[in-house]
């Protein structure tokens, strides 16, 4: 499946921002089963400095610096992304690194983080959901279903700083909260897993389309490799999702983070459209 993707982030400041330095995780990465044919970030006003790097997790990282006063910032990604169905993905990756994981990667995605620290409730939830479920893939499926059943999708009640423990206590939130709870629960069980940010095909009867989306990638062992689960929609990720970046939690892959001087109040607005170009 080939998608035309547009992701537009707009900040309007109530007072001019005098200086800004931002880190952007907004250029999609290539991964097994995903080929980024084109990707271009257009930024207005044009930054005074712009640096491109690959971060610790292999994601594209863009740094922009604006030294002149500005009252808005618009960042638009236009990309063409080709996504394969998981079966094709595994076939192309057979024997390759995509189906494997280094000890360092497994260790990195096993450690807890501030946003995914488990409390007693998460530990109990994890053991309850995983009981009798067999291998890691089975546990992933069960965990995803358990979260989906117990949670109510409700935007606006949580924030980017909401922890997994807080989200589980509320049993409501958005995709980031679903993902954090699943990550925390899987890590309680010693299963390496990563937070994936990305997009969902527009127009589907799913939650999280036309916005940034997030889900979980679980290391299921050398056989299946990394398998992605979307607990918000209770689906094993197929070719309806496109990956932007991954890390241990949201903090590692926040689409835009920055330090600004001035600016007053500002609320970002995001528009996403991921339309299939042709059937494949």
């Amino acid at each position, binding site marked *: 499946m080939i998608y035309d993707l547009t992701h537009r982030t707009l900040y309007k400041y109530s007072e001019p921002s005098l200086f800004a330095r931002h880190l952007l995780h907004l250029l999609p990465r290539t991964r097994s089963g995903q080929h980024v044919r084109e990707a271009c970030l257009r930024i207005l006003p044009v930054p005074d400095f712009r640096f491109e790097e690959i971060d610790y997790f292999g994601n594209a990282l863009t740094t922009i610096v604006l030294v002149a006063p500005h009252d808005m910032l618009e960042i638009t990604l236009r990309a063409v992304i080709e996504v394969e169905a998981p079966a094709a993905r595994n076939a192309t990756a057979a024997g390759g690194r995509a189906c494997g994981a280094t000890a360092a990667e497994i*260790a990195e995605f096993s450690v807890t983080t501030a946003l995914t620290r488990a409390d007693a409730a998460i530990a109990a939830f994890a053991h309850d959901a995983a009981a009798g479920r067999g291998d890691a893939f089975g546990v992933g499926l069960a965990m995803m279903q358990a979260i989906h059943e117990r949670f109510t999708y409700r935007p606006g009640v949580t924030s980017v700083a909401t922890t997994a423990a807080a989200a589980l206590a509320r049993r409501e939130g958005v995709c980031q909260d679903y993902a954090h709870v699943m990550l925390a629960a899987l890590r309680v069980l010693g299963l390496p897993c990563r937070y994936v940010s990305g997009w969902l095909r527009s127009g589907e009867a799913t939650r999280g389309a036309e*916005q940034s989306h997030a889900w979980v990638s679980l290391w299921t062992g050398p056989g299946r490799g990394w398998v992605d689960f979307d607990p918000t929609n209770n689906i094993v990720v197929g070719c309806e999702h496109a990956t932007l970046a991954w890390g241990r939690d949201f903090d590692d892959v926040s689409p835009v983070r920055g330090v600004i001087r001035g600016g007053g109040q500002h609320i970002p607005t995001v528009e996403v459209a991921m339309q299939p170009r042709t059937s494949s």
Partner: protein
Amino acid sequence: MTGTNPARRFLPFAMTLGTRELAARKAALRRMAAVQLPGVARAPEYDPLPVMLPGGLAARLGRALCRRAALLGGAIDDLYSVRSLVAAGTVSAATLSAADGWLRQMVGDAGLVAPRLALYAADLAIDAVGGAVVLRDHVDIVPGLGHAIALRRFTGAAMPELVRSVTLVGRGPVIERWREDLAHWAGGGLVALLEGEAESAADDGADAALLARAIGAPRLRPADLDCFGEAPEFRTLTGSRPVRLLIRRMAASAIDPLEQGGNPAAGIAGVLGALRRQQLAMLNAPGSGVINEPAIAASIEVAIGAAHEAAFGEPMMLCAGAGADLPIVPLAPESDSAAMGEAACVLRLFALHCGSTGWVALPGGLGLAQGPDGMTHMKDVWVVDRGEDAEMPRLPVRGAVSLARAATSVLPSRAADDLFWLGRAVERLEAAGRLCALAQSGLAESSALPHEQFQRELLLRCLARQQLISPDLAGRNVTARQLREAIRGEAVFAPLIEAVRRLLAATSDRFSPTMLATIEGALERVLAARAAGLVKLVPAIFGFAATCAGVIGEDAARDGALLFATLGQRLERLFGLAGSFAILLEEEGGRLAAGASLAIELIDAGMTCEQRYGGIPEPDTALRLLLADPAYPRSLLFQAIALAEGFERLDAAAEAAEARAIGVALKAAAGSASPRTALAAVEARAADLSSALTGRLFAPPASCQHRDGAAPA
């Protein structure tokens, strides 16, 4: 160590001086340090009796120290680049990932401008036969180097007899070579020490100050630096200067709020990116401390031991260990009636990475003796050159690269900011004292006379404006007793005094120890007088303000410091008096006369009026004195002129023009029947001037941090 203990080598000689003289030498040593360390909160505990290391032992230790530093540096490089130690299972990937000191942002194959580990120190226990055990490695922030460098000079001056009795291996060549390498890494740019914003109990400002002085580098805090482009720049009043090398004295965990989160003002947004892109060198690199994590340290110790054997064909001389017996060293008596003391002593030896030369050990080091008083007494460590066994460092001299000495004469924006606000805070405190004193005296004998009742109302409003009483009281008919209760010193003055104290601490390095003690003594008297009521408190405040003005004028005149403190004082006086006068002079006719009389009392102009006019003048004359007398130091025009002149010295033309325009407005207001509106406008314009000055010269720290791009949904 016993009778052959080299740490006791100087004891017989020193004892010939006698304990009384030794105590005097110790006091002299401390005085020397205090003079060299103005503004340092905690004076270092120095002991004049050095620890002696025979040249042969020192050479062996130095060689071993350098090897250990190289191996530890290699291990750090490995963890942050190829990670072969992880791949081989020497260091557990899980342990590394879970380590607090593991800085993912610093991982990369591209390398950095300077080695990740370029400064190293080891705390050693040395036994009687020269065997040594490493009690602790310092691979993150390396403490004590400043003391180690400076103590040689201090000890030499305090104990000249000892210096003459031996030939010491000098440190000069090593320090000079190191400075050249710092300059080389900095590419001719600025070298500076970077300290944290919030000084903690663990910080050693004296050490930082001495190190900065030794290498001719300024001490900077994150608020002094901005990453406008690729590399940090040091904000000064004369513009920004690129910084190319930072000797890190702050924790790595919050050094870059952009990448690590946390308070934006506590770090430098973009500094990690500058390091990765090789636009900046930092000693030591953030993240180097990860090998000090206990679970990792043990693995690394095994790995470097094996690497040492492989590389040099012999076991490593300096290995980590614990429980070693520490040598006992003598401590000079604390007073002329005290006896000699003794303490167990750790030796801290330092190694410096000198570019292509590699690691070089600093001859000597620092003796850290834990005294019976619980204090750590620092001793110089002398390496005695006997000609045959002391290996003098032979260091090639680099080319013509010279360290760009930063201008200790350059006043950092942060320091100017603090001085400006110190000037404002002291003036505000004094103004509050004047108002309270006036209210106290005027209302103590409150009568029912209409003009006195009116004056009480005015005073209540002035007090409320300055937040010295609750705003609720301003509109009420309170009794004199109620008012006295409301303006009792402790509660009213506490925040003002605290502000002064905080700013005084922030600017303490601008004063000599004697002058700082003078100001602090005056402030202590203010604090002591708080409980005694306004009768004693107000004179103490006036005394403090006068002391401050005198000391700043005499002692802090370096580098424009006086100018900024004066600007703060004048601006606060303009702002404060304009606001008070707008209240006192708002009426017309007879009520204007009552208000003007009060205003004259407020600025203590009674004697001037007596001399000039034979008493309180008519309102129109009073207005000219209060508002538009260019020669009277408490008139508003005087403040405006002083501000204009100050701004002109700073080339702040727009602000200078505004101050002069305020002066014109004041002259006009002095000729009007009702100056209230004009005075309120002056008050607002003064506030705007303060903002303009802050924005133009002080560059406020980053105001907020965000991480979103909108939450995923």
